[in-house]
């Protein structure tokens, strides 16, 4: 059984700081890390491999320092790591990203029974690449997978979590699963895993290797354009009740609630 997991490098949001004056992200000295939701996807693949045999390939598109994230994936149990990296890819939106990834999978003839993606990245938060990629590869796809119940030679049984229900779906292999956190709890890398990762070869390709037309990807190939970035005004005039004024604040809140319930203007 072969597993292909998409991983993305993201800024380490635990350490993200906001400039209090401009409200923008302080980018200096930001570490990168594996998108936390991808770690759950990877763990699912690694645990299935341990049970049923086979191999886990991780695939990423990103700048060269993504190599560190891929090494970490190897330390966590992946067997093969592939990075697509090229300046021509900078500024790719979800369409261009999906296209580049699809071409890479096809060009390198990566074999897989399950293509597993985390629900979304914590930086872009679009959650679109998994489904777009599956569509380009003409794979069946199931999103919001909360549990993998069973896997057989040619099928997989999963639980899907939607607004009003849990659904149990049977899908043929190969299939793309976009998974929620609950599918697996990521492990910590072992010492031997770390050693293996240090020596592991990370395969790095550029657009030429994959025969991707640079016009089709990156900012040029992206249908969407960011035309404006601005700070949200989230400031209100707060009346503070502290120390001895706290009871007064609670009274005011109670009054506010009473009036709202009575449908009076507040």
């Amino acid at each position, binding site marked *: 059984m072969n597993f292909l997991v998409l991983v993305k490098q993201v800024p380490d949001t635990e350490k993200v700081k906001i400039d209090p004056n401009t409200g923008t992200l302080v980018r200096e000295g930001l570490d990168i890390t594996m998108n936390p939701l991808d770690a759950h996807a990877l763990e699912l693949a690694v645990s299935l491999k341990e049970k049923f045999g086979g191999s886990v390939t991780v695939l990423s598109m990103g700048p060269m320092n993504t190599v560190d994230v891929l090494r970490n994936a190897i330390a966590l149990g992946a067997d093969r790591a592939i990075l697509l990296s090229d300046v021509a890819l900078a500024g790719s939106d979800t369409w261009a990203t999906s296209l580049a990834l699809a071409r890479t999978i096809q060009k390198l003839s990566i074999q897989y029974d399950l293509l597993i993606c985390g629900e979304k990245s914590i930086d872009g938060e679009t959650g679109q690449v998994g489904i777009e990629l599956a569509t380009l590869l003409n794979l069946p796809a199931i999103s919001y997978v909360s549990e993998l119940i069973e896997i057989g030679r040619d099928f997989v049984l999963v639980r899907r979590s939607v607004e009003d229900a849990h659904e149990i779906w049977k899908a043929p292999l190969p299939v793309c699963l976009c998974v929620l956190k609950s599918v697996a709890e990521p492990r910590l890398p072992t010492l031997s895993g770390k050693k293996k990762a240090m020596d592991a070869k990370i395969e790095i390709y550029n657009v030429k290797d994959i025969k991707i037309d640079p016009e089709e990807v990156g900012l040029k190939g992206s249908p969407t354009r960011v035309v404006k970035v601005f700070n949200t005004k989230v400031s209100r005039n707060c009346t503070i009740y502290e120390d001895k004024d706290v009871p007064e604040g*609670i009274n005011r809140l109670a009054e506010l609630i009473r009036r709202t319930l009575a449908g009076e203007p507040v």
Partner: protein
Amino acid sequence: MIVVLNNRVDRNSFELLSKARKLADKAFMKLVFLLISNSKKNIEELVRFGPDVVILALHERFERFSLDPFLSTSKKILEKYSPSIVLAPATTFGRTLMPALAASFRTGLTADCTELDVDEKGNLLQTRPAIGGNVMATIVTPFHRPQMATVRPGVFEIEEQKKRNTIFVEEPVENPEDRCQLVRVEPKQAGAKLEEAKIIVSVGKGLRKKENVELAFRLASLVKGAVGASRAVVDARWLSHDHQVGLSGKTVKPKIYIAAGISGAVQHLAGMQTSEIVVAINKDRHAPIFRVADIGIVADASWALSELIRRLERDDDGSRR
């Protein structure tokens, strides 16, 4: 033409139609609602929100969403009508079908928009939180059609329109293929109903322990409201994801939003800024939540909630006497 796409006639459909009607008027476009569903339930309600045309694609297969049949059917209909803009709610339905459609049409898609506008060229201005909610970004799709966006439930007001002569068209659906097979459905318990609550009591880690979340439920039931939560509380499994308010949870706009023991990460603020009145209760006088609050109470959140409950229960007794 603007198409609003959904698999049921619900609140999300009305919100999107209300907003899309304004965009359509501004850009001199037609507004079409495309329903891909197994039933005509509530379709007569749609006319109150002003679509020029309602297209129905009905088939028993569409009882629950599955990518293959929904994609092939919607693709065929969108190809026939070639709309300029396609909108869908950012639900598990819209967030799955729309990327597949965007990939099929080789076009752009903006996820989770919180604001939409059109410019004089008919470009859809799609605004969404970016970089983890730290900033807002406006995105356009200048050279590809259709322009596609999913829209966060709860951000647009539902506004009724004057009656117009809405045309209903039924599109034939040939037995759509599905490579996947639905085995069974287990209904979830009714969710937190955050979208409809007038008063929301939201809790953060400042409540100190899971047991104290009970206070929020007691208060919420007293005020006929709902219980919200910060991401930290959901991550700690004090409450289910249904309760989460913020960028990776729900967008809410109640009359009163009580943030108890929530420090106010930007991701959280992104989901509750639209509340009418924000009340923050936090021990830390410098917590960012106070900057977005109208009333700030600097106190231990659990203690303050119990005090408030006691106070409201007393009011209750008084009125009954």
